[in-house]
């Protein structure tokens, strides 16, 4: 199971992958997470891959993604073709237009929602995580919540959990 999170730096792309990977491990699976970003800390495109398997993972580079998450247009354009047939596309509908791209796709206004609900665009990624999990049921929600608490600063933990739960409820 290969999942790719993509967008600009600063959108919490990498954090999403880390949370997801650790949640998978909490669920008793093997996981590796890798990331890549442009050379400036923020501006460039950024991606984060998570590979989840039951057995030892020899393959370090996903050869196709089962799930693609897109938080920016350039990232979407760059990576859309990595989506496997029957793969699922998740994207922020304010930031990405998929036009004629054909796939099983799901979208929400995560960034706008985050800003308006929680006062910070930063929570968009966690809302998206909830949304993805509600659609895919890949990992149980408790493991993801535990993982969120592990990785976000404790003073923001509750807000993040709320964001996650908000995402879980979206359609």
């Amino acid at each position, binding site marked *: 199971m290969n999942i790719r999170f993509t967008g600009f730096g600063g959108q919490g792309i990498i954090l999403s992958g880390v949370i997801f990977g650790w949640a998978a491990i909490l669920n008793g699976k093997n996981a590796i997470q890798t990331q890549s970003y442009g*050379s400036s800390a923020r501006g460039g495109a950024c991606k984060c891959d998570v590979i989840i398997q039951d057995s030892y993972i020899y393959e370090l580079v996903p050869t196709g993604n089962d799930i693609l998450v897109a938080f920016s247009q350039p990232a979407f354009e760059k990576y859309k073709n990595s989506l496997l047939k029957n793969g699922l596309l998740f994207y922020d509908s304010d930031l990405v237009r998929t036009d004629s791209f054909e796939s099983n796709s799901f979208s929400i206004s995560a960034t706008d929602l985050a800003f308006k609900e929680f006062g910070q665009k930063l929570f968009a990624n966690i809302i998206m995580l909830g949304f993805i999990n509600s659609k895919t049921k890949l990992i149980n929600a408790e493991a993801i919540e535990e993982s969120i608490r592990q990785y976000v600063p404790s003073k923001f933990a509750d807000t993040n959990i709320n964001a996650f739960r908000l995402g879980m409820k979206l359609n």
Partner: protein
Amino acid sequence: MKNELLKYLRTDILPTEFCSGCGCGTVLNIFCHVVDELKINPDDIIMVTGIGCSSWIPSPYFSADTLHTTHGRAIAFATGVKVMKPDKHVIVIAGDGDLAGIGGNHLIHAARRNIGLTVFLVNNYIYGMTGGQVSPTTPSNVPTTTTPYGNTEPAFKIAELVSAAGASYVARWTTYQVFHLKKAMKDAILNKGFSFIEICSQCPTSYGKRVGMREGIDQLKDFRDNSIDLKKTAGMKDEELENKFIVGKFAERNRTEFTENLRNINRKFDEVPV
């Protein structure tokens, strides 16, 4: 409507990769104004830089001959450039880590030599590009990714240091003082010897957030509220000046330029009969 100054930039790669609110962009902006107002043909400029966010101001954004060197070595490379191209404006723009951290020795030696380079050091108080490690200009006690319990080292006063090293023009301004900075950049470019401006600049991503200033504008307000004119500091105590940005001109001296000295030697041999 496009900004006319974009003609000075490599526009195909815009918008910049700088974070939103980053001071590097402001430095780039003001520098374009300066080149425009001084009517310098960019073909007569050679930009030299190192590695870091600030180094991206010239490389790749400003459109002139550009030498993007290794980390910390811009001034060393620029020295070779200036010796061979004494009539060009050889301009170095790079960061605090690059020019005063790893590159500190080249900085003070170039200042000593008084070689005709123009150096704009963008001091964002941090190693920005690598994600926020302490730099030689990070104030004491500030937490960074490599000083999680607060910085144990005092910060350089770079303008003062470069002045002590012998530079013929030295100033410090912040990205808030756009008009002073513009004027200083002009003076620096027109000065014949080694010219140096320390530009205090905001880095919301890697520095600001560490000191409770999440957005670029927060640091700009800090610059606005806590800058103090060098001329007014006489007699002030160190404590009073803590966390202040002392701005102004630190040195303006008449000294012969290094490459001119070299050429004077060569001229002696022009007259030697064969």
